[in-house]
Structure formats: structure tokens, C-alpha cells
């Protein structure tokens, strides 16, 4: 028999039972669609995610964190347990002792903060464009007829993301320590409403008032500060007066009835403040020029990144130089817990990150998160593949069942064919072909439907993502590759053929005389 004739007969037989064929096709098509979309989606979404991240400012940013200096390992003599006891108990206690020593040393060892020296060294690394310590400033903004308590942050002069969100003016230039950017809401509160008015705001002067004071006094101020009405100017004034009073009280501590020991304790606790050049209650003010008006970013779906690479959401953004200067002035403390390092391109991140780590700091970058994303996507894909496989196997059992019923129904027919000279392998091929044709049609249908679903899915997902980030999604979210199509076709056909093996074998081995008389 010719393969073509066998295929035609198989097709003819499938057409003879349209309903059963349709049901089988549905199952196998569904499984194949899942496989196709998973393969395509896994690839495409990963690529899209990569390009999204690479295009965003996040990709060129490294967050650097203070790190504690690793304490020396405790020596054996320190954790050895002596005495009469079982080995098991001894080991257990030695383990516990050793761990407690390590924890204690780590806890009490010095924190390696990002001081000016460290920041300068990082800034001098090749490909580093800017180093911005993460500081949040707390101040009162004053204008001729405007006054409000606000928080402010340092913004990288190079922020690409920020440059896309300007209503008026420009981002801060690298040497412009005088400049600030303000949020559109603040502009509105200041009375600048229309677009024209907002534009006129650029170049205007504003004054920021900070309160100084050493750590001891600041701590005291925080301690009495309740969370509610934190932005009340009344509270700011009250605190300032309170700190003045405290300063005086501590200066007059000798006049009190406290014991010498108590006096000494109070002096040492507030010792920082006594070395202050500026008293804690003093307000320093500085003038700034508004360079631009920005608006907030859309809600970002990559909350994972946002936690580490979140853009400043304060209403006033300062140049990092000004921000650090203030921070140092206010807290008498020139070291920072964390800083954002901007590099020239995504590809420089890894190398700069390594250098920073060699300085002894912890780092975090999108680069190091990429691997994480890869693993996540791969895991989800594995689960979906497993489901698809389950669908296919269940369908295969259904197909097997259908084909066995078909063999039973067609037993006389096979008997007649054999009596006319058909060989066992002809009958075997005929049944296997029915399975294969089913698989082939299903794979074709799956390809068409997957393509349609992918097109729709791409549109929906794209508008979903773009509605949430300030980037455009580049490329197709579902990337059908030749190997993935081959895989889907192969899976569908192989599984259908496997489903056909048992029925085919049963049909092939029929005795023609017996089979014919089943009529």
C-alpha cells in the first residue's frame, strides 16, 4: 500500500466519526496550545522584561549598602565544652556556643558606613557617572507667601526616568548644587496652576530651613514626636523651642540637685551637641533655585525593584551635593547607610559592582536580579509544561480509547482487507496514521489558535505593562521560535502515535476469518 493511500484512508475514517474526532482534536489541540504559548510566552516575556529593564534607569543603577566588618572566627579554645557528658550533647552545646559567639561579635562589630572617602573612591571608578547617597531631608520650605513642612531627597542629576517626567524646566546639571526640582502638586499648592504659570515657576527662588543639632538632641526630638501631624509647622516650632530649652537645661545641669554621677551621665549622653558649632535649636536656611517641575512615575509593577531602586517620591529633589552637605551639617555625621551609583551602561554594572564589593560594601543591582527572574520564569514554565503534558496524556488515553472502539467497529473491514491481501503492517500503519493525522491536524490548529491568542495576549499584556511603567515594551511578548513550533508538532504527533500503538497492534493481529465473520 502507498503511504498516500494509507493517509487518505485514515483521513476518511476520521471523517466517518466527526464527533469523536472533534473531541479528540479539542484535547490534543488544547495541550499543544498550552505548550506553544508557554514556550513562546516564556521566551518573549523574558526578552520584553529584559529590554524594559535595560531601557529603564534601574538597569544602570547599583545600590550600595553599609556592611558590618566580619569579626574574627571564635577559636576552638573559646567554644570547647568540658565535663562528663555524651558526645552528642557536647557537640550540640559546642555548636550553640560557637554560634552565639559569632552572633555577638557580628552584632557588636563596627558598621562600615559609606563615608565621604568611600563615596569619592566609588565615584572615581571607571564608568561611574554619579554617586548619590540616599538621604531624606526634613525641612520647612518658605516663599514670600508660602510655607510648609516637607521631606526632600537627593536625585541623581543623570536620572533618565526623571527627565521623562518633566512638566517644565530641566533636570539638575551635575554642578548645579543650587538647583532643586519640585513636584507638580507642590507647584499647585504654591498657587501655580495652569501650564503657563508652572513654566513661570522655573528660575524662582525658594528657601529651605533645616534644624541642626547633634545626635543626642535629635534623638530626644524624635522621641517626643508623635507620628500624627508630622508635617505640622507648629510641631516644628515647638520642637525647636523644646530643644533650645533642653540645651539650656543641660548646660545648667550643675545647678540641679542631681548627683555627680547623674550629671556626668547626662553630659556624656549629650556630649555631641556640646561640640556643635551650631546649637540644636538654631535654624539654618539656604536659598535654592527651582530648575524644573516634575510629576510622579506611574505605579511600577516591578515592586521588587521599586523597593531597592525606587525613585524619590518626595516633593522636593535636591542635588546630591547640597543634600549631603545639609545632612552633614544637620547631623554632624558624614557617613551614609546607602547610596545609589549610576553607571554608563547596563553592561558596566557587573564590573563596577564587583569593585564596590571589594571595598567591603554590599550591593544590589538589576543585574543580580536577572538570574532571579530567569529562575522564576523557568519555574513557572516547568509547571505549565507539566500541566500541558498532563492534558496531552489524558487526551492520549481518550484517543487510545476511541481508536480501540474504532478497531472493534471495523473488525470485519480489517478482516476483509486482510482476506484481499493486506499485510499486518498495512493495518498497523492505517491505525497509526489515524493517530498521526489527528496529531498533525491538532498541531496545525494549535499553531493557528496560539498565534491568534498570542496576538491578543500581546496587546492586552502590553497595554497592561505600559499602563504601569514609563517604558514602551519592545518586541513581541510571544516569540514563536522554530524549535518551539517543532517541539509542539512533535509532541502532538508522537503522543497521538503512541495512543494509536495498542489499538493498531490489536487490529493488525486479527485473524481474517474470525474478523470477517464479526459481521
Amino acid at each position, binding site marked *: *500500500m*502507498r503511504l498516500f*493511500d494509507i493517509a487518505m*484512508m485514515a483521513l476518511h475514517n476520521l471523517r*466517518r466519526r466527526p464527533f469523536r474526532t472533534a473531541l479528540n482534536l479539542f484535547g490534543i489541540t488544547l495541550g499543544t496550545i498550552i505548550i506553544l504559548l508557554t514556550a513562546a510566552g516564556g521566551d518573549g516575556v523574558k526578552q520584553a522584561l529584559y529590554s524594559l529593564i535595560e531601557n529603564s534607569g534601574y538597569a544602570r543603577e547599583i545600590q550600595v549598602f553599609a556592611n558590618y566588618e566580619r569579626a574574627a572566627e571564635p577559636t576552638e579554645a573559646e567554644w570547647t565544652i568540658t565535663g562528663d557528658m555524651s558526645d552528642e550533647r557536647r557537640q550540640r552545646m559546642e555548636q550553640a556556643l560557637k554560634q552565639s559567639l559569632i552572633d555577638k561579635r557580628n552584632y557588636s562589630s563596627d558598621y562600615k558606613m559609606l563615608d565621604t572617602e568611600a563615596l569619592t573612591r566609588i565615584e572615581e571608578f571607571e564608568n561611574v557617572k554619579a554617586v548619590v547617597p540616599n538621604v531624606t531631608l526634613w525641612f520647612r520650605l518658605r516663599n514670600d507667601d508660602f510655607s510648609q513642612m516637607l521631606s526632600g531627597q537627593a536625585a541623581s542629576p543623570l536620572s533618565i526616568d526623571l527627565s521623562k517626567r518633566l512638566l517644565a524646566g530641566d533636570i539638575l546639571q551635575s554642578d548645579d548644587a543650587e538647583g532643586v526640582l519640585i513636584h507638580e502638586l507642590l507647584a499647585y499648592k504654591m498657587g501655580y496652576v495652569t501650564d503657563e504659570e508652572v513654566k513661570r515657576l522655573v528660575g524662582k527662588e525658594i528657601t529651605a530651613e533645616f534644624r541642626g543639632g547633634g545626635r543626642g538632641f535629635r534623638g530626644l526630638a524624635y522621641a517626643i514626636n508623635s507620628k500624627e501631624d508630622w508635617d505640622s509647622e507648629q510641631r516644628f516650632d515647638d520642637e525647636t523651642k523644646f530643644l533650645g530649652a533642653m540645651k539650656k537645661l543641660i548646660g545648667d545641669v550643675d545647678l540641679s540637685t542631681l548627683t555627680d554621677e547623674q550629671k556626668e551621665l547626662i553630659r556624656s549622653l549629650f556630649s555631641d551637641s556640646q561640640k556643635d558649632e551650631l546649637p540644636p535649636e538654631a535654624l539654618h536656611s539656604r536659598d535654592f533655585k527651582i530648575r524644573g517641575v516634575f510629576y510622579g512615575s506611574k505605579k511600577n509593577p516591578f515592586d521588587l525593584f521599586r523597593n531597592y531602586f525606587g525613585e524619590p517620591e518626595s516633593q522636593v529633589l535636591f542635588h546630591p551635593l547640597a543634600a549631603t552637605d545639609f545632612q552633614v551639617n544637620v547631623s554632624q555625621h558624614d557617613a551614609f547607610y546607602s547610596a545609589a551609583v549610576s553607571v554608563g551602561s547596563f553592561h558596566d554594572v557587573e564590573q563596577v559592582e564587583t569593585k564596590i564589593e571589594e571595598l567591603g560594601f554590599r550591593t544590589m543591582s538589576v543585574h543580580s536580579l536577572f538570574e532571579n527572574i530567569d529562575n522564576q520564569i523557568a519555574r513557572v514554565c516547568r509547571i505549565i509544561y507539566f500541566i500541558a503534558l498532563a492534558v496531552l496524556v489524558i487526551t492520549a488515553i481518550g484517543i487510545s480509547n476511541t481508536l480501540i472502539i474504532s478497531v472493534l467497529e471495523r473488525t*470485519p*473491514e480489517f478482516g*476483509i*482487507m*486482510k*482476506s*484481499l*491481501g*493486506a*499485510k*499486518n503492517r*498495512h493495518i498497523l500503519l492505517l491505525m497509526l496514521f489515524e493517530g498521526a493525522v489527528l496529531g498533525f491536524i491538532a498541531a496545525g490548529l494549535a499553531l493557528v489558535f496560539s498565534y491568534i491568542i498570542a496576538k491578543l495576549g500581546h496587546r492586552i499584556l502590553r497595554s497592561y505593562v505600559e499602563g504601569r511603567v514609563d517604558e514602551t515594551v519592545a518586541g513581541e511578548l510571544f516569540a514563536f521560535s522554530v524549535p518551539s513550533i517543532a517541539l509542539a508538532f512533535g509532541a502532538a504527533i508522537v503522543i497521538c502515535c503512541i495512543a494509536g500503538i495498542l489499538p493498531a497492534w490489536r487490529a493488525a493481529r486479527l485473524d*481474517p*476469518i474470525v474478523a*470477517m465473520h464479526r*459481521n
Partner: protein
Amino acid sequence: MIQAEQIFKYFGNEPSRVTAVEDLNLTVEAGAKISIVGRSGSGKTTLLNLLSGLDRPTSGRLVIEGRELSRLNQNEMADYRLRCVGVVFQSFQLIPQRTAAQNVELPLIIRGMPANKRVRIVADALLRVGLEHRASHFPYALSGGEQQRVAIARAIVKRPSLLLADEPTGNLDSQTTTEIMQLIMQIAEESNLTLVLVSHDHELAVKYSERIVTMCDGRMSEVIAK
């Protein structure tokens, strides 16, 4: 040419063994037309199944058209059925889902003949049995006699040298029986086929064959030559 020597055919095992053919010796010259008659259960169909290569003798030597059937493997046996014999059954054995033409076409498909060649040969065969106008009809739409004509066309379409018929008219009325028998005889004559006709109807056998083999309980009891 058929040569059967000491053919035995048993079904099943002791103690329920059935002897269907016992010590059968028979020679049929090429082109001869013979009949096998006998009562029901005498082993006629069993013998015919052996001749058509659908079954194998339990012992004995069976040589047909130079092929020793008892020595053929399964595939060679299928090939023998495909090329050497055409069989006509009492119950027609047409495939209900295929049209008359498609049923006739089946042996050619199995042989691997290309579709364009098949069309003409099938039409020819249908013409020979006088059914050219019913080619596209399904078996359910044909009368018993017409169905048997289709079966005859299917049996001869592969140009066999041996035509076997097992009670070909058993399901037909006397008028149709005559028509079908005449058709078979005519075709066998024209193509110089060796014809083996099985019938329990002695009269019919006498009328249409040169030689009559009588079977009784699996044994060939007499051979009457005209």
C-alpha cells in the same frame, strides 16, 4: 494448478478436537472448473479457506500456482491472497462505508497501484459485471445480486489465476442465482481462470462444472467427472 496431498485440518485440541478435513488428496489442472459439494459441516468452507490462503492445513502439502502454501510466512501468504486468488463469499463481504467502486478498488490500493491507473481498471471490472451505472452507490443501496456482482468485480479486478466461490448464490433467489452463476462461468471462461465452486446444491454443481468433488465428514468421498 492446485495440488493437495494428504491434507489434514483439525480445529482445537483433544478432547474437543474437530476434524474438518481429513486425508484430502486433490489435483486441479489450471483452467479447470470444479465444484465441491457436501452436507453442511462436511468441511467445504474449511477446504476453501485453505485454498484461498486464509487458513493453513494442520498437515499435508498444498501447492498452488507453484507456491507451497504450507511453507509461506504470514507476509508471503498475504501476497498470495493479493496476487493469485479471488474469493467470492456467500455473504458478499463488502465494506459498507465504501461505494461499489471503492470496494472494487481496494485490492488495487493494497497492491500499491497509483490512483490514476486504478480508475480505469475499476471501471472496466464494473463494466464486466454490468454495474458501471451503480459505481458510486453504497452496498446498502444495492440488491443482493448486485452486491454479489460487486464482490465478483472485486475478486477479478486483480487478475487472479484462481477464482474461489463459497456458496456465491446461497443468499439469492433462483432467477438471480442463474444470472450470477452465468456471470461467474463467463468470466472464468473468458479469463481462463481455475474455478473452485463450493455449493451444497448438487444440481447447480452438476450444471456448472466439469468435475464434482463430494465431501463427507471432512473426507473427499467421490470425484465425478463429466
